[in-house]
């Protein structure tokens, strides 16, 4: 049964892709839709191939990757520090929690213009944007994760005389790992989003900047090509995080973990 299921997936997924692409291609040709409105898949493919042969394109890929990655790493570091304090010290949690909920409610994208005023048109403002937008889901998951430790496990360690730090290290941190990775998984996609949004609002380079330039020149196929590249970046990051998760959280079934 299982064998059959896997095989049908292998056929159905690429099958649907081919059907959609063919329909798209032909409908556009039949209805004579303007390329600047919606290009055919073949034109998007051509644009993608053309771009991938220019060093200009790869420079921009690298700029956006850097912004997203630095932002993501910064968000993770701050979330780990803040999450540890908030989960371990009651008074810190009680003091900060209302603020966190308040900040969480701000549509972070709306902060981008302010960051551009503060940090300029260069990469810094995008890194900050990526970090801010990825920070909260990672933080929330860390707090939830550290609190999720099984009270029986904690009891068991206490019987043997464990200190609070030993309980933190030996039970709470491992218990938090599945949540932590769920947070990273959401966080990395949001930091790519943050970097691109930052670039939309004012930048000199990056894939978001390329989208703007293409829009200005009515090069719609290039805009779609970049959209594909951004998706691939996201998928690639997701795969890496899932692989790390599988390696470091081998004991847990991640299906019952909160995603956002």
């Amino acid at each position, binding site marked *: 049964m299982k064998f059959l299921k896997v095989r049908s997936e292998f056929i159905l997924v690429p099958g649907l892709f081919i059907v959609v692409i063919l329909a798209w291609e032909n409908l556009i040709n039949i209805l004579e839709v303007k390329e600047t409105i919606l290009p055919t898949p073949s034109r998007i493919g051509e644009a993608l191939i053309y771009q991938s042969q220019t060093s200009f394109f790869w420079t921009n890929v690298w700029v956006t990757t850097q912004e997203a990655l630095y932002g993501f790493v910064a968000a993770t570091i701050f979330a780990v520090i803040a999450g540890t304090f908030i989960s371990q010290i009651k008074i810190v949690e009680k003091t900060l929690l209302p603020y966190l909920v308040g900040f969480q409610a701000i549509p972070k994208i709306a902060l981008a213009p302010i960051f551009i005023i503060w940090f300029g048109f260069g990469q810094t403002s995008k890194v900050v944007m990526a970090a801010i937008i990825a920070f909260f889901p990672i933080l929330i998951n860390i707090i939830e994760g550290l609190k999720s430790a*099984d009270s*029986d*496990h904690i*009891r*068991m*360690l*206490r*019987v*043997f*005389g*464990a200190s609070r730090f*030993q309980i933190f290290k*030996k*039970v709470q941190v*491992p218990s938090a*790992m599945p949540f932590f990775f769920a947070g990273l998984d959401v966080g990395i996609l949001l930091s790519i989003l943050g970097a691109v949004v930052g670039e939309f609002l004012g930048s000199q380079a990056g894939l978001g900047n390329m989208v703007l330039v293409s829009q200005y020149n009515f090069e719609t196929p290039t805009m779609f090509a970049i959209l594909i590249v951004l998706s691939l970046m996201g998928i690639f990051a997701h795969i890496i995080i899932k692989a790390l998760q599988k390696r470091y959280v*081998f*004991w*847990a079934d991640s299906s019952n973990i909160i995603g956002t």
Partner: protein
Amino acid sequence: MTQQNNAIQDASNEASWISVKGLHKVYRTRTGDSTHALADINFNVRRGEFISIVGPSGCGKTTLLNILAGLISKTEGSAAVSGHEVTKPLSEIGMVFQAPTLLPWRTILENLMIPIEVQKRNKTEYKAIAADLLKLVGLDGFENKYPNELSGGMQQRAGICRALIHSPSVLLMDEPFGALDAMTREYMNLELLRIWKESNQTIALVTHSITEAVFLSDRVIVMSPRPGRIAEIINIELPRPRTLEMMTSDASGHYVQRIRHYFSAANVIE
């Protein structure tokens, strides 16, 4: 303190290695309700003695062990181990829980080493002891497996090894054999008696099986439900070493009848 005083102190400690006096426990819930779980519990356990605690479900057996282990607070009275009032967990106590409570991210061996790590003892030295204990309970070859690769009964046996590894002078066991099949249970009963004889440990065991309590113990504490009180403390005067044949002997049957009487009187089905 003078040496003589020390000697007197030690002698009295020996006679009441575990000492419980006028102990009460009232649980208060957030909604304002309260449960009187233990009421006026009094008993002493000699050093090296094996006692069992039996009683209907919910009569406070786990509560009593948790107080002795220093895990929960008492409402009134005193509970002391080796002369020290228990206010926090003591390193001379080992505990087997009602559930195996192994950490899923640690191998069986790593789980056994938890007391050693926590108490900062020499790891290499205790690894050998861990291996011996695992062999004793029929888990040799499972050192590097993870808990989810073991059956419930195997996990419970690993939990027993973990409680024994630092050779605690007092062993508290909360229905340690509940998850085992009858055959393994008998085997584990015999092994426990053997370990106990060699180590001179003081053991307090909670069990649902009256036959098991009679077979293992020097004394059986029978508790009555709600609020948990001691109904009777019964001396089991069967000779040692005990053998499986004794389980079905008349003398043993007599004790079992006597204990069972309390439960049928209280209309509790055992």
